[in-house]
């Protein structure tokens, strides 16, 4: 009973604290909107490195090597999707110095003001990046992000069953001939990837926001679904190598690592069909309120060194955007990444998935309808 005045007092204090916090955050975020990148010299560190990354995307020992070289502590925390990373950064004071958002998420984060512009004077190794990755659509000035790793989405085929003489085309799954392999085909269980494949096969952009084009793609996927073993993302590569399927819609990195797990990797072939497919790029970026921006710049510069880039790719087996790293890759990986047979339609045929804003829901609806 006698606690009551105190309780009321506490409530008032709490209310003021929240108010003060809210005001404080307004002031801070507008201060962080300044255009210039952090003022750091090459190799500067201003504290420990807190990396926020996808699981199994860098060797823990590799990260430790960075810490040892610069006499700091480097820690990594993992997330499982771009969407679960975004709110943590956007709420502010996340404590992270470097994050690894995918292509479309970079665009969203730039628009939201959640990334700080990079100071390229502190990242001389940015010139190592291959021209294929210059000025991407999601960061046209390449002011906020630099590529980390990349991969394609395409088809993987068991040539022991399908033979070598088949069209390197999406017709393999969407065309007439697909019925020959009925029940032995998987498509990714992902609206943007699978409808994107259908859009490409029809000759449209995989970022189409035209409802008519999307309807055509939906009908194509619906027609193909009769020949499918499953819409499967998690284990489509394993289903292929275990012999349950013969054609799989897969991510290049997954397919490649899975091939190497088998006794006879040469019987499998991965390619991006001639009509084109998806190229995804994960990027390094620095949150707007990163506590140690100089360490972050130093880390990005360090990882863009040719040797470090090769170490990274040789561990996670994804593609490297680093032109200086290509020759240092494991032979098998190098062969896979540089083979012209992989990218049948050439670099111009591939697109990155872009955020279509409110149209995303149309993709989700169309995919649900196509799956039936």
């Amino acid at each position, binding site marked *: 009973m006698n606690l009551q005045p105190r309780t009321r007092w506490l409530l008032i204090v709490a209310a003021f604290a929240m108010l003060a916090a809210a005001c404080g955050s307004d002031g801070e975020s507008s201060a962080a909107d300044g255009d210039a990148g952090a003022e750091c010299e090459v190799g500067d560190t201003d504290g420990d490195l*807190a990396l926020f990354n996808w699981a*199994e995307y860098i060797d823990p020992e590799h990260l430790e090597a960075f810490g040892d070289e610069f006499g700091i502590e480097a820690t990594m925390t993992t997330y499982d*999707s771009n969407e679960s990373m975004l709110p943590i950064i956007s709420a502010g004071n996340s404590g992270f110095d470097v994050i690894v958002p995918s292509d479309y998420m970079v665009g969203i984060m730039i628009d939201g003001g959640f990334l700080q512009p990079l100071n390229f004077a502190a990242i001389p190794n940015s010139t190592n990046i291959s021209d294929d990755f210059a000025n991407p659509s999601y960061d046209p000035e390449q002011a906020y992000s630099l590529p980390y790793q990349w991969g394609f989405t395409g088809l993987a085929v068991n040539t022991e069953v399908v033979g070598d003489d088949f069209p390197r085309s999406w017709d393999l799954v969407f065309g007439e001939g697909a019925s020959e392999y009925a029940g032995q085909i998987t498509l990714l269980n992902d609206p943007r990837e699978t409808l994107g494949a259908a859009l490409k096969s029809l000759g449209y952009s995989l970022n189409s926001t035209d409802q008519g084009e999307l309807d055509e793609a939906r009908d194509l996927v619906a027609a193909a679904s009769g020949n499918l073993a499953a819409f499967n993302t998690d284990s489509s590569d394993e289903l292929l190598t275990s012999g349950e399927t013969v054609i799989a819609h897969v991510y290049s990195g997954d397919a490649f690592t899975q091939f190497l797990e088998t006794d006879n990797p040469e019987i499998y072939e991965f390619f991006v069909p001639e009509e084109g497919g998806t190229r995804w790029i994960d990027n390094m970026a620095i949150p707007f309120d990163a506590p140690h921006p100089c360490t972050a710049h130093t880390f990005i510069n360090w990882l863009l060194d040719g040797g470090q880039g090769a170490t990274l790719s040789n561990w996670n087996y994804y593609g490297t955007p680093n032109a200086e790293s290509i020759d240092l890759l494991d032979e098998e990986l190098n062969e896979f990444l540089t083979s012209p047979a992989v990218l049948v339609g050439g670099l111009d045929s591939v697109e990155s998935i872009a955020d279509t804003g409110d149209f995303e829901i149309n993709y989700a609806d169309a995919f649900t309808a196509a799956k039936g």
Partner: protein
Amino acid sequence: MTGSITEPRGVTRRLLQANAWFVYLFFYAPIVLLVIFSFSDSRNVGVWGGFTLDWYGDFAASEPTKDALWASLQIAAVSTVVAVVLGTMAALALERFTFRGKKVFDALLYLPIIIPDVTMAVMMLLFFAEASKLFGFTKGFSTITLSHIAFSISFVSVVVRARIAGTDQRLEEAAMDLYASRWQAFRHVTLPLIMPGILGGALLALTLSLDDVVITQFVTGPGWTTLPVLVFGLIRKGVTPLINAVSVVMLVASTGLVGLSLIAQRLRSDTS
């Protein structure tokens, strides 16, 4: 003996038995499969590839997995202890005393049980983002532990209250009549009586903390990835039996804890 409810017979009885068996089947068949395939020598969780202990070896050799397990255990231990103390205190206050605002407090205490995880996660995220700016601390162990305490208190207090409601308050009064101080009465009479409830609440809090993905993922900070959050991240690259092995280890650990607490209770009742 004539009970007020007669045991069902014939078809009803058989249907009820079948129902019970089905319930057990649905509960335990997935667990059995999970355990079996953790010993499978194939990357594909659906294909048996012969017996192997490799996945457990991988688990033991994987630095990130061990770090995540250690992080989970630290957070679970601290959050459970604090939540049990606070939850028990709240339960005692609500069951034993009347005070102004009791009804409001009571209703508020149920809130974390009722509101969806995501809602709570977003609230916590915003709260800690502002609070850490204001007081200048780094998110991580502190924020994850605090949020686990916050949702565990409710569960602990519900379990403990049920136990308190089932005990006879007159025993405590009798002890005080016999010149026990308030503390002595609590220590030697009340506490032992409600101990099963407290242990039950503690196990619940521990499990909730070890399990939580949604809230933890939102309030985490540099260097703190818990095991369930890591497992979620790994699943993105396909489910391998490594995840089964991790799950089996957690399963054995949590059933071990339950077993231990049961043994502890039995020993206690034997000696008294």
